[in-house]
């Protein structure tokens, strides 16, 4: 799927939501959610070759072990952010906040080994003073 198809789909979704028979029904929300999910997956499809490129770029370097972790954090951040915005569109502010909270917690949990590693390095550095 390229940008022209996405734009065409966006226009169709917008027109579909504005149709009198759909505007105030549950179909309007379904169209929005479907379009949001589609854009999100397309975004990741677009970016995945570049992630591969950066991954190859960092192979054999110090970042090789941290790269999957960082991309996972990036994925979690985007997923929770887009889910939260869809929930907000649906008028579910509290669910959106919970999703964000879970996303942040997940990223912090993933970052803990990194924090531990940093403490270890600092400890080694200061250990023999």
């Amino acid at each position: 799927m390229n940008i022209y198809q996405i734009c065409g789909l966006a226009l169709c979704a917008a027109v579909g939501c504005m149709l009198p028979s759909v505007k105030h029904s549950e179909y309007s929300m379904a169209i929005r959610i479907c379009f949001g999910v589609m854009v999100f997956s397309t975004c990741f499809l677009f970016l995945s070759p570049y992630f591969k490129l950066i991954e190859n770029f960092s192979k054999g370097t110090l970042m090789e072990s941290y790269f999957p972790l960082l991309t996972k954090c990036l994925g979690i951040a985007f997923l929770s952010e887009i889910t939260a915005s869809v929930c907000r569109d649906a008028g579910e502010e509290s669910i959106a906040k919970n999703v964000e909270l879970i996303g942040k917690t997940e990223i912090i949990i993933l970052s803990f080994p990194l924090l531990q590693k940093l403490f270890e390095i600092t400890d080694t550095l200061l250990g023999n003073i």
Partner: protein
Amino acid sequence: MKFKFFLLFLLLLLSSFSVSVSAEDPLDYDTFDTEWEIFLKEIPSDIAEFLPDVLSESLTDTPTDRVSASSLFRYVLDPLLAGIGTYGKFLLSLVSVLVLCALFEVLKSSLRSEAMHGVFNLAGNLCLCITVCTVQTRILDYAFSFFSRICTIGNAMIPVMTTVYTASGNITLGAVNSGGMALFIALIENVFSKILAPILKICFCFHYISAFTTDRYLNGVNKILKSVYTTVLTTTMTVFSLAMGAKQLLAASSDNFIIKSARLALGTFVPLVTSSVSGSLSTVATALSLIKNTCGIAGILIVVIMVLPILTSVILNRTVLNLASSVASLLGATKQERILSDTASLCGYLVALVACAALLFIYLLALFVKATLALG
């Protein structure tokens, strides 16, 4: 009046570092051979393997130029190429983190949550800090092991020098020289390992902590530590260079074009102590020419093998950090740029320390070589 005060102060200073000097019975050549063997054992194996012929020669042999200029180039180019490969990988790993951080920074405007951005920045900064910190820890260890190696070699030189002076009949000179040199090595070893190294390590740790906080207090502490470091390093080097000049062991040569060019290069690569290091450049040149005239190219080779790998490493490390900082600036990752540029500035302090240690080694070697001339 001021001059008198200065003289009085100098006398007081010298008296605080006084050593007890006593005459000894002249040693025979068997003792000399033992001291020489002990000295050879102290030479690190990685250097000794490069110089098998030189080390097997006895001191009474005439110095030979067995090491050709082409091999000298090889010893210069090898560590340089190895360093470029290692630090090229380091640069790649930094750039890959920066690209990911910049990607998130670009998409930040389309995302509503600031908190999510903050959390991802935390993960990105942690990755960046670990990558930078791992390399810096290695470099610091390398630099400090280089320094302790210099002190070990220096300490091993003392008995040989004393024996040489004693054998040539200069008993008093031998005793004074060995006492003075032992004092200087002990003093500089203490200053480097007990003051400068801990300060630098603490500065690095504070810097990594301040990367995750906005506390201005840490920056203030870091500034104080840096100024203490600069003062101690500059004073040590000035005193050392003054002592060398006062002893008139290494008379300064004329300020030629090469010295001027080297001074310019030092101003670019070695921060903080540029004035005290470049001021003693002519003395270094004299020391190097003395080493070359006495030991031939092999003497210069020892200096190159000892000094070049560590100097190349610290300078390349700093260059890579500066490059990565520029990349971060281009990508719009401001926080990461600050981390990298601050680390690069701290590496400048390490470059200064290594440059001073290299000078110290050249001086020590020149003094050692000068002592062997007493036999002739």
